[in-house]
């Protein structure tokens, strides 16, 4: 498993290098520049700004400069926010995004696994239909609708929770975490139901039952280990998706996370910020996929043997 880990890490280097290079040249092709504004700046001022940020050099020179900095861990200064470096901005937004993603995935796992396993065990009863119907709603209702809906009910009508913010008012983390977690809970519920159903029909479960083991032990110890492998495989891309895709929830709830920087950087043509966040999120996706693959491997004895 350690060999696989290092092999995958080594493979990630050319992947990230390719991501950085392609992104660099793609943003150069995109029309508009970081200093285009409603009130157009004079050619003299534009020249000064381009000089200040080395944008007057050729694309190739800029690319070499950027990659040299990148290897040394320097993601450059933000063009949009003078005086701020991209690394600093990522470091500011990341803990918030991680915390949000952590709560969301926790909610998703607890709700999803509980409902999924329950549905599998009570197959074709109302305890199966109702959670699965809720899961279907969760998958279908986008977070930009779910968020305002929760705010309307719990924030504005019942006045129980703050409508926005992060770490500003008591309870302000509940609604965004629920909004982001709910969609993933729905997926996890369906995956765990499917996985559990498959395992519950296997011979070794029948054997366990024949041996008179308690149903609780059969489910928790034997069935869930195999039944939840699809969930674990899903978790890697899900966590990466949560990190990169939290933009909508961050905007609805006014959360100072990384997702907002990422999307707004693209709108602002903040070249270094786009590059920095893209490379960072790519690294996260590679890393979490690797973790989930390793976890699935560890849970599944058959694939362990093959490896």
């Amino acid at each position, binding site marked *: 498993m350690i060999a696989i880990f290092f092999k995958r890490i080594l493979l990630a280097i050319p992947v990230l290098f390719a991501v950085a290079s392609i992104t660099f040249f793609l943003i150069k092709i995109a029309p508009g520049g970081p200093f285009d504004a409603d009130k157009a700046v004079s050619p003299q001022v534009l020249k000064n700004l381009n000089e*200040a940020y080395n944008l007057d050099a050729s694309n190739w020179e800029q690319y070499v400069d950027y990659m040299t900095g990148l290897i040394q861990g320097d993601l450059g200064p933000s063009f949009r*926010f003078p005086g701020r470096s991209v690394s600093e901005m990522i470091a500011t937004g990341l803990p918030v995004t991680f915390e949000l993603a952590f709560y969301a995935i926790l909610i998703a796992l607890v709700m999803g696994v509980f409902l999924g396993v329950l549905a599998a065990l009570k197959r074709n009863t109302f305890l199966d239909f109702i959670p699965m119907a809720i899961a279907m709603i969760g998958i279908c209702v986008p977070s930009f609708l779910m968020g305002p809906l929760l705010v309307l009910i719990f924030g504005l009508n019942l006045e*129980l929770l703050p409508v*926005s913010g992060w770490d500003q008012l008591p309870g302000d983390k509940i609604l965004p975490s629920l909004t982001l977690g709910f969609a993933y809970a729905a997926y996890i519920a369906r995956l765990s139901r499917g996985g559990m159903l498959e395992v519950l029909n296997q011979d070794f479960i029948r054997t366990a039952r024949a041996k008179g083991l308690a149903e609780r032990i059969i489910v928790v110890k034997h069935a869930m280990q195999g039944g939840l492998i699809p969930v674990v495989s899903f978790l890697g891309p899900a966590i990466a998706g949560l990190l990169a895709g939290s933009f909508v929830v961050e*905007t*609805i709830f*006014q959360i100072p996370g990384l997702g907002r920087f990422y999307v707004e950087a693209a709108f*602002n043509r903040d070249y270094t910020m786009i590059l920095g966040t893209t490379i960072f999120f790519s690294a996260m996706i590679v890393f979490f996929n690797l973790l989930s693959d390793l976890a699935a491997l560890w849970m599944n004895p058959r694939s362990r043997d093959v490896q």
Partner: protein
Amino acid sequence: MKTKHFFILLAFVIAGCSKSVSPVDSSIETGVFHFGNGSEPQGIDPHIVTGVPEHHILISLCEGLTIPNLNSGGNLPGAAESWTVSDDGKEYIFKLNKNGKWSNGDPVTADDFVWSWMRILTASLGSQYPDMLYYLEGAEEYHTGIISNFDEVGVKAVDKYTLKVNLKNPTPFFIGMLSHYSTWPVHKDTVLKHGAIDDRNGQWTRPGNFVCNGPFQLKSWELNNKIVVEKNPNYWDSEKVSLNEMHFYPVSNVMTEDRMFRAGQLHVTSTLPSQKCPIYIEENNPDLRIDPYMGQYFYRLNTNNPSLKDVRVRKALAFSIDRKLLVEKVTKCGQIPAYSFTPPGSNGYQPDTKIPFDPELAKELLTDAGYSESNPFPKLEILFNTNEDHRKLALAIQQMWQQNLGIEVELVNQDWKVYLSREMVGDFQVSRAGWIGDYEDPNTFLDLMRPNRGNNKTGWEDANYDSMVERANSMNDQTQRYELFKEAERILIDNMPIIPLYTYVRSYQLSPDVKGYNPHILDHHHPKFIYLERD
């Protein structure tokens, strides 16, 4: 059983945070003003940033020579306690307030202004607003490198507290321009401690480092979350400052901002969701404010485009738009139909141009230009940046042009930067545009349409118009100036390189607890006049 426990726990969690006192309610005691500020400011270096959210923060942190009088117009003393203007209107002597101090206790001197103005005119700083000081003798020449000795620029410290400014021409709006943050001072020692005079990335604007001379000082800055400023005890007029703190929230989503206001998390919003404005008007929402604003919404016509070269075509397009219908049925938030480029009433200026809604005349003009059923007008494209409000308006105009002139119109929406770059290179036929005045004078609009101005973008130039604006700006007499501006405005509307559509309004929500937040045509609200009181 487990389910039961979970729900009991959830009930406790929710009950634990229920019905807490909202920030707006508690602010009556604490004196904290919660301000919805639109977007995250680029920064707070007055010589580098551009934009409205930045202005809101800077007006609390720094102070220029004068501040606008928000009640009766004109200007009030700021860093300067008095000023005199020479008879020819070209020399200004400012007497600085001797009690004026930076937030670290240092005195604010005339040298500070000279150094600050030198900084913004230093080309390598890359400031986007150096032209605000181009009215000074030698300023443009210094910025563009024609001269390298700053002593030749028309700003001098006569003594510690006397500043002399020499202008190229009498510029009656010069005092008004001093309310723009690009002319405000920065603390020389602090800036130089954290970088060179032209360092854009200096760390002097960080909390703990930042020093300025306004009624508040920077307390904390959480990126994308909030900026907190607290009362500055060293401010010369600190007795007048009633608020203890101001919290600026960069809420870019207007719906979120609306919800925050309704939940008592904000005293004032930066704007209003456009679809909610008519509803709030109908409901007589007491928190709704619709104030006059010195801004114009218009369409640019690319006069270099073969279809739009003929002035008769441009007029036909303008005359076939029912502006009243646009503001009543499309924008629906108190906007005013526009028949001139400069919004009427800007510092007493009343343009007298007219743009009739006359489909018959429009049709005739198009026929005169050689278009008929056998030779139909080619398809026209309206370019706008992706935004639902711009789309709605463009749809209405598309309908009017199709119905009144029989012109087929295509709507093209583009990402903001793509739209800007297409406008800049002239790759458009008709493009939507908006302009907000920088200072209270018609020149802030009419200057735009002079030849070689980067924001003209229409390809239109007229020597007569140019000389009219030029002459107006070399005059000291306001009445004569305005007559020339009116004449220039007539030339502009007669040539129609732009089609004015409506005059903006500032629509937002304001808590009834906030007092002293008076309407202002440039949307300036000096925080030292704002206080919180519950009726």
